[in-house]
């Protein structure tokens, strides 16, 4: 069911946080837990500018949970279509751009802008945009707001103790709106002491042009049947409060409004003083606090003589509504029980290690959520197990088949390549299996086996940038980089590498689309025209096919595929596959009782400096 227009936030609202704001996220979760929400109010975090992504660890009640963290707002919005709020913590320099982007996503209804110091013209452009799109902006220069017992924005509402003190974990009957974010808690506290508490509290921010006005929020409160009275805290400067005056006069607002405009002190100041808020400066008599207070009072608002009496006036209006039966006595709800170790400073300990692939604590060992007995019973292949432990999900059969094919093909390449050679030499030195295999594995890297990673990276990048095969070859030549995945020491066009042929055959038979392979074969056509042995090699083929396979699954975004490559997953295939061969070589040497290896002299070219050359430098130094 669609929510009524007057609802911006409620118990089901989830949001995307733009900015790596762990503390604010944690406070939102504390609040949600306290209020007994079903799910956390934060769906995802966006950590811009290529900072850390992955997961953010936070507490939800007693449990530690993980929230997804992305580098791009677009990814977060796409993956979390239910989240209709963006809380924008970007700095004043980038807040505008981020807000424009956020407003333009159809799933986003409300954007809260925290930054202070956004140019006024930019804010006005944002307001025009949000009006055109029928959306909401709260801020800029605000801490946000809260709906009691439902949702709170970022740091609004303050510390846990204040949420409890002001009873923000359950609904009251009072709608509150102010310019000042700092006064939000103060007023919530005052309202909770003098009535049944806050229903909703919003701080629109102290800028000259707020993204939504005091009146617009009062109109929402007027439309909301659960709100019975309203409190508004205005400020010297601007004419927002006169909109409220007009709305009171023409009957748009009928519920009781208690109002106070701050800045009455300005009249005694000798010359103009800019208050803390950008908009707080009276230009002309009508913008003074006194003039606004008088106008509000004349229009029928409840206006105290000074801020000091605001609390009593709230109480009077509330008691009056109760006497008249407009506000019913509610039974006091208790907040959800909060664990005693809630204060992170004292007892609760944040864990140091996260594991998201396997869990050995329960009755049964789990691989990515699948009990080991199912893995056995349901006939998971080795490829399936790899997909569970490497990709955290069971991938389709053709993918796991490819993984196994790649393992089979890379398992060994004879005794002379670095890995096997090292393993053999170590085994001959009398070391054990672990040391021998490790010695071999350690040679895997940029020159040996590493071409899988690099081939995937470079070819994918070229295709992503829309280069033609020719442009790609020319670019690499200009940069003086050998194209990874191209070239072989021994094999050539006339003496093809069967392994590559096998992989290609498999791809043509099993993959509906193989864009990157097609691209690579075009590249090969160009390079082999130059030199016979510049063929597409097995490393390149494994890497490139893997990218095509990830695309074909249609479950990964470009960013995610880039990440899979960048963290070294493809290298993993080579390490895993080749380990089979190196264990073989170790066992082979042990069975043969091989003796310590010593490299023959005649295979080493000895080229030492002469004695004079060696001593020359030290001699000249000595003389001085």
């Amino acid at each position, binding site marked *: 069911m669609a929510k009524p227009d007057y609802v911006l936030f409620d118990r089901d609202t989830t949001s995307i946080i733009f900015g790596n704001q762990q503390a604010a996220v944690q406070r939102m979760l504390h609040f949600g837990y306290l209020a007994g929400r079903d799910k956390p109010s934060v769906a995802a975090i966006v950590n811009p500018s290529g900072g850390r992504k992955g997961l953010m660890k936070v507490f939800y009640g007693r449990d530690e949970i993980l929230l997804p963290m992305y580098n791009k707002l677009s990814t977060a919005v796409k993956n979390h279509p239910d989240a209709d709020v963006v809380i924008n913590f970007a700095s004043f320099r980038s807040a505008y751009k981020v807000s424009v982007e956020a407003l333009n996503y159809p799933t986003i209804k409300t954007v809260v802008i925290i930054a202070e110091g956004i140019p*006024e013209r930019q804010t006005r452009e944002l307001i025009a945009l949000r009006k055109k799109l029928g959306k909401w902006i709260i801020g800029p220069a605000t801490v946000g707001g809260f709906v009691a017992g439902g949702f709170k924005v970022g740091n609004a509402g303050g510390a846990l103790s204040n949420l409890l003190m002001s009873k923000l974990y359950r609904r009251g009957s009072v709608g509150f709106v102010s310019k000042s974010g*700092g006064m939000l808690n103060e007023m919530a506290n005052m309202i909770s002491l003098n009535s049944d508490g806050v229903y909703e509290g919003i701080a629109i921010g102290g800028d000259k042009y707020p993204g939504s006005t005091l009146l617009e929020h009062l109109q929402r409160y007027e439309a909301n049947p659960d709100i019975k009275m309203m409190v508004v805290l205005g400020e010297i400067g601007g004419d927002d409060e006169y909109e409220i005056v007009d709305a009171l006069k023409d009957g748009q607002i009928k519920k009781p409004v208690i109002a106070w405009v701050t800045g009455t002190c300005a009249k005694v100041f000798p010359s103009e003083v800019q208050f803390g808020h950008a908009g707080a400066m009276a230009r002309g008599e009508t913008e003074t606090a006194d003039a606004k207070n008088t106008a509000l009072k004349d229009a029928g608002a409840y206006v105290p003589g000074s801020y000091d009496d605001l609390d009593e006036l709230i109480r009077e209006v509330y008691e009056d509504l109760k006497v008249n039966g407009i506000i019913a006595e509610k039974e006091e709800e208790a907040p959800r029980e909060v664990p005693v170790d809630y204060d992170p400073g004292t007892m609760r300990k944040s864990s140091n290690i996260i594991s998201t692939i396997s869990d050995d604590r329960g009755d049964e060992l789990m691989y990515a959520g699948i009990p080991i007995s199912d893995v056995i019973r349901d006939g998971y292949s080795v490829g399936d197990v790899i997909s569970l432990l490497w990709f955290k999900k069971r991938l389709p059969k053709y993918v796991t088949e490819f993984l196994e094919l790649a393992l089979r093909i890379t398992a060994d390449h004879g005794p002379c390549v670095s890995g096997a050679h090292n393993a053999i030499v170590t085994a001959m030195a009398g070391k054990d299996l672990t040391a021998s295999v490790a010695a071999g594995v350690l040679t895997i890297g940029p020159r040996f086996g590493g071409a899988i990673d690099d081939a995937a990276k470079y070819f994918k990048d070229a295709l992503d940038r829309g280069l033609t095969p020719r442009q790609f070859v020319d670019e690499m030549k200009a940069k003086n980089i050998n194209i990874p995945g191209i070239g072989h020491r021994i094999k050539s066009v006339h003496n093809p590498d069967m392994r590559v042929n096998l992989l290609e055959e498999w791809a043509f038979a099993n993959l509906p689309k193989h864009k990157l392979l097609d691209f690579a074969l075009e590249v090969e056509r160009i390079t082999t025209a130059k030199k016979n042995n510049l063929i597409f090699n097995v490393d390149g083929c494994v890497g490139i096919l893997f990218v095509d396979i990830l695309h074909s699954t249609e479950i990964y975004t470009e960013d995610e595929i880039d990440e899979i490559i960048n963290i070294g997953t493809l290298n993993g295939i080579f390490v895993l596959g080749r380990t089979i061969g190196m264990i073989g070589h170790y066992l082979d040497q042990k069975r043969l009782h091989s003796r310590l290896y010593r490299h023959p002299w005649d295979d080493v070219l000895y080229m030492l400096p002469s004695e004079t050359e060696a001593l020359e430098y030290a001699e000249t130094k000595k003389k001085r």
Partner: protein
Amino acid sequence: MAQRGIREYDAKNILAKHMKKLSKGTVKYRGKVALVTPDTSIAAVAKKKHWVKTNKLTVKPDQLFGKRGKHGLLLVNVTYDEAKDWLDEKMNSIVEVGKVKGKLTHFLVQPYVELDKEFYLAFTGYQDGDYIHFSSEGGVDIETNWDKVTTINVPIDAKIEDIDLTPILDSVSSEDKKGLKDLVTALYLFYRKLQFGFLEFNPFTYRDGEFFPIDTVARLDDTAQYLCHEKWGDIEFPAPFGRELRSEEQYIDDLDEKSGSSLKLTVLNPHGKVWTMVAGGGASVIYADTVVDLGFGDELATYGEYSGNPTTEETYDYAKTLLDLMTREKVEGGKVLLIGGGIANFTDVALTFDGIITALEEYADKIKEHDIKIYIRRGGPNYEAGLAKIREAGKILDLDMEVHGPDMHMTKVVSIALNNLDGGN
């Protein structure tokens, strides 16, 4: 920050740099203006700008206040020597403008222009767009002639080229129409692209494709500095007339600029008895209001605020600056210091109070010497620890101090403090 006034000299100088491009060459503006200050005499100015000696001149203070003619501070149609004599007399003199007394330090010198027509043009912003106000009867009496001003609205996302300007130019002669249309368009673009909050030319005249602004008032949106610093050039935001920044205010201003938090200080009356150190842009105003409402407006020494979770170090610097100012002059009956604030959202009360405590320790002897009573009220994250620490510090330092938490009404502490103070109305 906000919209802030700039000197007429700067406004005209910037305009001269941009007019050709913005008007696509249709309007000429020569930007003949000079600024005379205590450090730059008119003689020094004349060496670079020869027209100062050859032209008849207009001279007036350029310090963000208007109605200079009415205050006898406008010199019109004079020679270089007459201007020099007048400047010698007025420079560094103290004058009273409205309620404000201040020192004259900056004067604008420009060629005297014979006015056959006095036009009025102003640009202002509102939420959904900008207004262009125009009148063919500008001049000092524009306010009484406001009914002659016509206004059109330019929506925020509209292009000025698409706006029909004829309604405001109705009253001008047909030969001036085309030129004024180009001029208004160019000046609107100037106002918009350079992020002015307010721009007024009153009066100005326009002859043969050349623009002659006589008086100009301009406010820039200083938050746009990061977008416009090249277009603006080396711009200065002077303090309002009669409110030259004290070194302490300048110090806090610099601190504020470097910090991600907000730190503001304005000294209203250094001889005052009531000093405030309040957290929060909203709460600080309410504290000041309450002091005024209770009749102690004349005794209110400072307005200021700290907010946005400043560091311990920043809060210490702020508190120290305030305590230093506060302990320079003794007053009969002592002073009060209100360390106030609402219930913070995310400012760590304990950490900020650590800074205040360090400052109190440093100034403890002086605080006692000046008979200062301290009243504290604060809530927010870690407030229990913060309040306990400052209470303890007060005891150890033997200060006259009262400490309250969020259970007390925010401004109650003001009435408690002022009850024990002599004076007030």
